[in-house]
Each structure stands twice: as structure tokens, then as C-alpha cells.
């Protein structure tokens, strides 16, 4: 039997279909947590956790294995990489656009105001530094008065 040798680009394309379990509008490649793909003997995917205690870490690893197995890749290994630590700067432009459409303000640089994902106004205020998940804060727009979530800069 001849073993198939996969191309990293092909693997990456399959991985770009895997949603983040907590913010399913984003894929794991939008989030920037796929750090390396090694197609030697079998396929090794290097992933980095967003937060130390992110409960999605195991779920993401399982869905990566499942997604590749669906494509017929049988020998999949996951490597956890901690360094350099994940930063919200790695969220792709496409990921930021999807977040906005979904109603979550994407992370901004610290010196920039957080814009409302509904009406785009900069006139917003923080309600709570913590939201439904560790990575989000709760905000309110003072222009359209809608509450919204902000993906914190990390």
C-alpha cells in the first residue's frame, strides 16, 4: 500500500473549515491558532491555545482530528505550542470582518476606541471587563444604545 503524502496547503484548506466551538462564526485559521503543519510520516498540526484555561482547547483538537479524518487522513497528530504566546493580532482581516458582522467588535490596538459593530460609532463605553467567555468584554454603544461584546485585545 502506498501512503499518501499530503501538501500543507491542502491540509490548511481543510482546517480552514473547522469552526471555533465558542465563536462558531470564526474558523480556527481565522483565529490564527494553527501554527504549523508538518506532512512527514502522517500529519502533525501545531496548535496554540488562546487562553491557558480555554475550555475549547480539547474540543478544537478533537475537531481538527475529525476534520482531517473525514478527508481520509488517518495518521493525525496534534502538537501544542505555547511559545510565542497567542495574541489577538493573529486574528486575520477576514476573521475581524466576520466578527463585526456577527455583532462582536474585533480587538483594537489599545490607543484606538472600540467601535460599535452595529452602527460603527466610536461613542461606546465599557459595561464589564468580562463577558460570556474569557476573551470578551461587555460594551454599550452610546449612539445606537445597543449592547455588544468586544473581543479583548490580548
Amino acid at each position, binding site marked *: 500500500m502506498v501512503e499518501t503524502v499530503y501538501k500543507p496547503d491542502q491540509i490548511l484548506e481543510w482546517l480552514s473549515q473547522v469552526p471555533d466551538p465558542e465563536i462558531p462564526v470564526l474558523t480556527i485559521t481565522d483565529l490564527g491558532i494553527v501554527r504549523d503543519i508538518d506532512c512527514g510520516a502522517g500529519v502533525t498540526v501545531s496548535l496554540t*491555545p488562546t*487562553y*491557558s*484555561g*480555554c*475550555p475549547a482547547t480539547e474540543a478544537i483538537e478533537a475537531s481538527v482530528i475529525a476534520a482531517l479524518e473525514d478527508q481520509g487522513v488517518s495518521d493525525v497528530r496534534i502538537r501544542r505550542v*505555547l*511559545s*510565542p*504566546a*497567542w495574541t489577538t493580532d493573529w486574528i486575520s482581516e477576514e476573521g475581524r470582518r466576520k466578527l463585526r458582522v456577527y455583532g462582536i467588535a474585533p480587538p483594537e490596538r489599545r490607543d484606538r476606541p472600540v467601535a460599535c459593530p452595529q452602527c460603527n460609532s466610536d461613542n461606546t463605553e465599557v*459595561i*464589564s*471587563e*468580562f*463577558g*460570556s*467567555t*474569557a476573551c470578551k468584554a*461587555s460594551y454599550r454603544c452610546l449612539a445606537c444604545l445597543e449592547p455588544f461584546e468586544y473581543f479583548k485585545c*490580548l
Partner: protein
Amino acid sequence: MSGKAVLAAYATRLGDNALVLGQRMIELVAASPELEEELANANFSLDYLGQARMFYTYAGECEGAGRTEDDFAFLRPEHEFRNLLLVEQPNGHFGDSTVRAVLFESWYVLLLDALTRCAAPGIAAIAARAIKEVRYHVRHSSQWLVRLGDGTEESHARVQASLDNLWRYTGEMFVADELDTEMLDAFDGPDLSAIEVQWRQNVAAIVAKATLALPAGQWMASGGKQGRHTEHFGFLLAEMQYLQRAYPGAEW
């Protein structure tokens, strides 16, 4: 001790601090004074548990005896835990929990910062991950200290009492024992005397802002780093380890 043994013991100690404080904070879930605090507390607790898992997994790798993160958390008796006495102190009222967090996190953030520059890449990587979270924690707990200290007469008096009561557990954070010294010499680890200077400065500034008085000249308790714990610790472990003790090997 061999280099690997130093790293295993040191990472276990770091894991113990994170796990025990994380477990204390879990006890607060569904008991916070307001919804936003509930979320903050649960998120922070999760950060600590995540850090503990990484430190334990790394310790198990260095040790090379096949122990997993769960073995470290659930199958060790009290005297094998090396966490600071401060983190095992009961939650008390919200002011007590706040002061415990401020005193510990102000130290932990400086320790992690030093560890990001140490010569043990495994520990440096976890520290670099963890410090991003702990910077958030210390900012949050400090804001609460100011709010309570500079709040009402009642909140001021109560949080001052919390500070006076918990202060005695800060001494051992800066007393370097054999393991701290080996970590410093062999792996360019944290210099606790340098951290003490910075910690005193930072804590004095927060305490002043909170219009509270810094305790002085107190007797200091110690023993956590050697496995001699306060009477509260056994109860914490009894609850946390119950399932694995009663049903060994049970899986989620």
C-alpha cells in the same frame, strides 16, 4: 538535585499555587456580589486551572515517571503540595478574597515576568502565556481594593481587617529556600529579593490609593513551600480530590 529534578519540583510548586487559588475561586462561583463579578471570577479561576495543567504536565515530563496532570492534582496528599499559605486561605467575605488576590497576584505577576527570561524554555513559555492573563487579574483585584477601601466606612474597616489578617502570609513569598536558590543558580530563575522590592512598592501604591494602612512589623507565617500547611488546606483537598479518591481512575 539534577537539573530535571529542579525543574519538576519548581513547576509543581507553580502548578500548586495556580491550582489551589483556582479551586478557592471556584468555591465562589454562584456567590459573587454581582453578575459581572461572577463572570470575572469564573474566568480567572479557569485561567488558573489552565496554568496549573500546563505546569503539572511539564513537571510530569521533567520527572519522567509517567505522572499526568491529574496525578499531581488529585492523588497527592496535603504535605506534598508546595503552594503558598496565602492561596489556601478561605474566601471569607469578598474583602478577604480581594485582598488575597491583590497580595498574591502582585507577587505572581512579577515572578512570571522573571520566569519569562529564565533559562528553562518550558517554564518560560508557560510564564509568557500566563502573564498575559495575570496582568488582567491584578488590575481587576486592585480596582476592587480601591473601591472597597475608599468606599464606605463599613467597607473600609472590613477590608483593612482583611489586609491586617492576611499580611502574615506574604513573608514566605520572598524567603528563598533551597529550590528557589537552585532555580536561580542553574536556570537564571527569579531573584526573590529583587521581586520583594518591586512588590512592596506596587502594593504600597495600591494600598495608599485605597486609603488603607499598610500593616507593619507583623510576625510572618511560613511552611507552605515545605508542605506544612494551615488547617484550612485539608478541607480544600478533601473536596477537590473526593471523586478520584472514591472512584480511582474515573474519567469525565
